[in-house]
């Protein structure tokens, strides 16, 4: 930090160079001392030279030119603050806390919710979804996408995409990348042009001609040394050579697929089996034409959908499509948590303001005489108010400056704490917009907390205030104002505590949900077979079997098995299931189930309980009869009155083979602990028509699973060292990651609630301490007349309790209001949960009583003699 850069302006420009030179010569550059002297010299030079007595008084009493008055008010305010450094420090720190927290939260929330996405014309980018039976937003099939693209007129361009995780081979270690396969309109929908090379061409979105790739700037830098001659060169993915045609700009943020580094054409053709209407695995986006709203585009797509349903009635379960602006869709999941946190921090700021307001009021009582003298010299109410407001705005600006420093650290912590699904994490930081926001809330809060004391003190009763030993009659209203402020603080603190309590209980309830397996002691990791050795199914299956054996033999490993999908792992693989003997009017309405292709050892390692029938074994091999297990939800849904064992089902379509149900296992939470349970099927991996080339290992270990990660990795590498091993995590980590968003909100609420309670306690303390000081004489007389210590303590505590109880009553109403906004974050607990409320009230009551204790104790020490002599 260079004081000259920040503070140099305080020296008048014409003398700046010489004076700064002198100061640097004396104190050295970039020293704190230099900054301090700079401020002193600047203040001395800018102060009016030798003001005569009259001019010193007049700016404080009369309204003259506005700028001059403001400057002189500010100067005066500075001196006032410097005169009582303890008060100033307390007020500035309180404000810094409130403003800093608000700034930090705003800087996290604003790029996600308020600022446009980093694409040109981002407001015209929308996502397209088929409407599900429950009005849900579903992915689309390629045939439907082509029809929409052909028939619609609302869009400049449309694109479909699917995710793609190719393994990059060649120079260096093999690396699995995250990427997307996209139709050729993709980058024009986003409005992004490659920094190097060109966009995909239409003819490259054709099967056989699609071996071209677009690299992210990061990948180009990291793996190809930013070599511009990469264009036109072949790069090997999954053993196939792709030609690099372009590199995206460094500023490109992949929001549709966070972390994506590589793009290639989708290259579907309508005849392909996975391009059918019911093959709903593509996401679609579009850029609206200028002037077209998402609503009108949605109405057009509804019409198109109606025609498609009429032509292909068995391919759709319902008509209609959703058009959702990209920003809404991206932020939908995190919005409740972010808004709740933003609301919470606003409450903290309010409490901080109320606190400073109360502090100022207390001080105004002490400054009684000063205001009276000003009044006597002819200062109007407005003039004194202006002076007081200047003081509070100055305080809040100082608080804001300190708050920015606080926010700077806060943002770092928040980025680490933020849920992984928070979009635009990289854009979070303190920038010009955030600073502007901070300046705005600083001034606004300065005025907000300055108004109460300004109104309450502006016109004291001159006569009694000036009388020696006299007391102003305005005191009563000021005490009332102060008490009201503290009551408000308690109410706000209660709201925050209640929110934190509800979130804490939700989190506990959520993590107490039985996921259907036993996460303790489980280690998971993903391995992908890739390269020329694994073109056929047989070597893929042999590798996974050998790796399983190698891992099972490790000391410390109890059971190990592979699955095509890990519960709570973030992916899903859902198939429509047809049940033999059940005829549906519309096959599109068939139930869909999560499909797990598993090897022996998986169910045992996960400890998914077998409820009836038999489990899958090594005997259920490629040539054995095809068998599946179903979960209890599926059994209850599809066979409510009969025995599913022995029944046959088809997965994926009418031309697929029949599978015989041989057992029923327990339900497993797949997408989240708070989701409703879906049907699930488990089949032997060996019996699926093609081998899954990426599988997740689950290994049950004795003791801490993380300790075995190295040994398990080594065992897999011993089978084939060339394959990438990814996402090594304990199952407990995987489960806990699903509660991230609630945890994020909870931790922040917790911090805010603690801060709020402390501020409220400080407020109560301040009021009582002030009142004990004011009532010294009264207390002394009471003591002299024989009041017991207990009686005096009760007197003070009763006053504190009255404030607290009023605050709690107001806070109870506020809590009802606030918790409604938390509804979407709550789980297993009502938004008016009385138990939580009771605990929270008790906590706050205890805090308040603690704050009463010190002033009460002091009141008992008042000596009658001194109290009366003091007058």
């Amino acid at each position, binding site marked *: 930090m260079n004081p000259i850069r920040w503070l140099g302006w305080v020296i008048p420009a014409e003398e700046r*160079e*010489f004076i700064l030179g002198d*100061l640097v010569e004396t104190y050295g550059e970039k020293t704190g001392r230099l900054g301090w002297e700079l401020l*002193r*010299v600047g203040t*001395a030079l800018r102060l009016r030279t030798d003001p005569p007595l009259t001019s010193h008084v007049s700016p404080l009493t009369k309204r003259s030119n506005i700028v001059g008055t403001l400057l002189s008010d500010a100067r005066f305010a500075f001196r006032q603050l410097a005169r009582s450094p303890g008060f100033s420090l307390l007020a500035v720190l309180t404000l810094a806390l409130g403003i800093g927290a608000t700034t930090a939260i705003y800087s996290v929330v604003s790029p996600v919710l308020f600022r446009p996405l980093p694409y040109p014309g981002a407001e015209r980018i929308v996502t397209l979804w088929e409407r599900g039976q429950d009005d849900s937003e579903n992915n689309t099939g390629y045939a439907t996408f082509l029809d929409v693209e052909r028939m619609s007129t609302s869009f400049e361009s449309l694109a479909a995409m699917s995710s793609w995780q190719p393994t990059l081979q060649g120079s260096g270690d093999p690396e699995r990348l995250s990427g997307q396969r996209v139709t050729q309109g993709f980058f024009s929908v986003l409005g992004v042009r490659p920094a190097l090379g060109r966009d995909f061409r239409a003819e490259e979105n054709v099967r056989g001609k699609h071996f071209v790739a677009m690299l992210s700037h990061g990948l180009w830098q990291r793996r190809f040394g930013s070599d511009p001659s990469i264009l036109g060169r072949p790069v090997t993915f999954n053993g196939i050579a792709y030609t690099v045609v372009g590199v995206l700009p460094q500023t490109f943020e992949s929001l549709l697929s966070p972390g994506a580094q590589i793009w290639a054409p989708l290259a579907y053709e309508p005849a392909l089996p996975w391009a059918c209407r019911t093959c709903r695995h593509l996401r679609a986006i579009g850029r609206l034409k200028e002037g077209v709203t998402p609503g009108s585009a949605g109405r057009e797509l509804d019409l198109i959908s109606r025609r498609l349903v009429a032509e292909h009635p068995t391919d759709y379960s319902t008509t209609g499509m959703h058009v959702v602006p990209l920003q809404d869709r991206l932020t939908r999941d995190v919005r409740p948590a972010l808004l709740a946190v933003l609301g919470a921090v606003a409450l903290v700021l309010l409490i901080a303001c109320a606190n400073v307001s109360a502090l100022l009021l207390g001080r105004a009582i002490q400054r009684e005489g000063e205001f009276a003298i000003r009044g006597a010299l002819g200062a109007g109410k407005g003039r004194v108010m202006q002076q007081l407001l200047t003081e509070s705005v100055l305080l809040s600006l100082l608080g804001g400056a300190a708050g920015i420093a606080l926010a700077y650290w806060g943002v770092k912590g928040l980025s680490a704490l933020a849920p992984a699904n928070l979009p635009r994490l990289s854009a979070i930081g303190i920038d010009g917009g955030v600073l502007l926001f901070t300046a705005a809330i600083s001034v606004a809060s300065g005025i907000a907390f300055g108004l109460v004391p300004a109104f309450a003190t502006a016109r004291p009763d001159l006569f009694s205030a000036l009388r020696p030993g006299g007391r102003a009659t305005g005191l009563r209203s000021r005490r009332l104002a102060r008490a009201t402020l503290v009551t408000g603080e308690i109410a706000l603190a209660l709201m925050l505590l209640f929110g934190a309590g509800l979130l804490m209980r939700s989190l506990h309830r959520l993590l107490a949900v039985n996921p259907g397996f036993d996460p303790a002691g489980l280690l998971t990791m993903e391995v992908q077979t890739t390269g020329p050795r694994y073109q056929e199914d047989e070597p893929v299956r042999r590798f996974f079997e050998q790796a399983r054996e190698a891992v099972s033999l490790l000391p410390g490993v109890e059971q190990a098995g592979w699955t095509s999908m890990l519960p709570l792992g973030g992916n899903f693989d859902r198939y429509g299931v047809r049940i033999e003997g059940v005829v549906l009017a519309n096959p599109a309405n068939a139930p869909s189930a999560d499909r797990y292709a598993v090897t022996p050892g998986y169910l045992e390692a996960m400890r998914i309980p077998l409820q009836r029938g038999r489990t899958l074994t090594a005997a259920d091999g490629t040539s054995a009869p095809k068998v599946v297990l179903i979960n209890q939800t599926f059994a209850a849904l599809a066979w409510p009155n009969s025995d599913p064992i022995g029944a046959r089902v088809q997965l994926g379509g009418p031309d697929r083979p029949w599978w015989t149900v041989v057992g029923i296992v327990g339900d497993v939470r797949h997408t989240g602990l708070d989701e409703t349970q879906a049907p699930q099927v488990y089949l032997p991996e060996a019996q699926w028509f093609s081998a899954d080339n990426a599988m997740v290992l689950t290994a049950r270990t004795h003791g801490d699973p993380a300790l075995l990660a190295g040994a398990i990795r080594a065992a897999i590498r011993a089978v084939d060292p060339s394959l990438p091993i990814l996402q090594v995590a304990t199952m407990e980590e995987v489960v806990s990651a699903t509660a991230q968003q609630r945890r994020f909100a909870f931790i922040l609420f917790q911090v805010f609630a603690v801060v709020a309670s402390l501020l409220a306690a400080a407020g109560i303390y301040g009021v009582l301490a002030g009142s004990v000081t004011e009532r010294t004489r009264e207390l002394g007389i009471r003591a002299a007349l024989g009041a017991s210590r207990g009686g005096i303590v009760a007197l003070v505590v009763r006053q504190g309790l009255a404030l607290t109880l009023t605050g709690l009553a107001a806070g109870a109403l506020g809590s009802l209001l606030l918790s409604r906004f938390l509804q979407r974050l709550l789980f297993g607990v009502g938004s008016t949960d009385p138990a939580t409320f009771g605990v929270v009230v008790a906590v706050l009551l205890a805090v308040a009583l603690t704050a009463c204790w010190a002033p009460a104790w002091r009141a008992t020490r008042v000596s009658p003699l001194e109290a009366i002599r003091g007058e």
Partner: protein
Amino acid sequence: MPLNLGEFEQLVLLALLRLGKEGYGVTVREELLNEGGREVSLGTVYKTLLRLESKGLVAAQIGDPTPARGGRRKKHYSVTARGRTALTRSLAALRGLSRGLNPVWGAP
């Protein structure tokens, strides 16, 4: 019109005379402290120097930039003839008025 000097102005002028060519903000403040036993803030010194300059009692010369000053130039002050006259008058008045009074400031 003869100019009357304030006390602090007298001190600053005297310090400048003592410093010769080395008179600028920092050295004036040191001189006041070391030789005059007065501790004043730099801001007061600058304010007085600027006021004396505007009254034509001192003149400023701009020096060369030096690395120790972060490449900034220095403003030297020297007492003008007008300044010397004013100071002489002022000191003469002091001397005249204090003549004959004994050291404890009572009447002889």
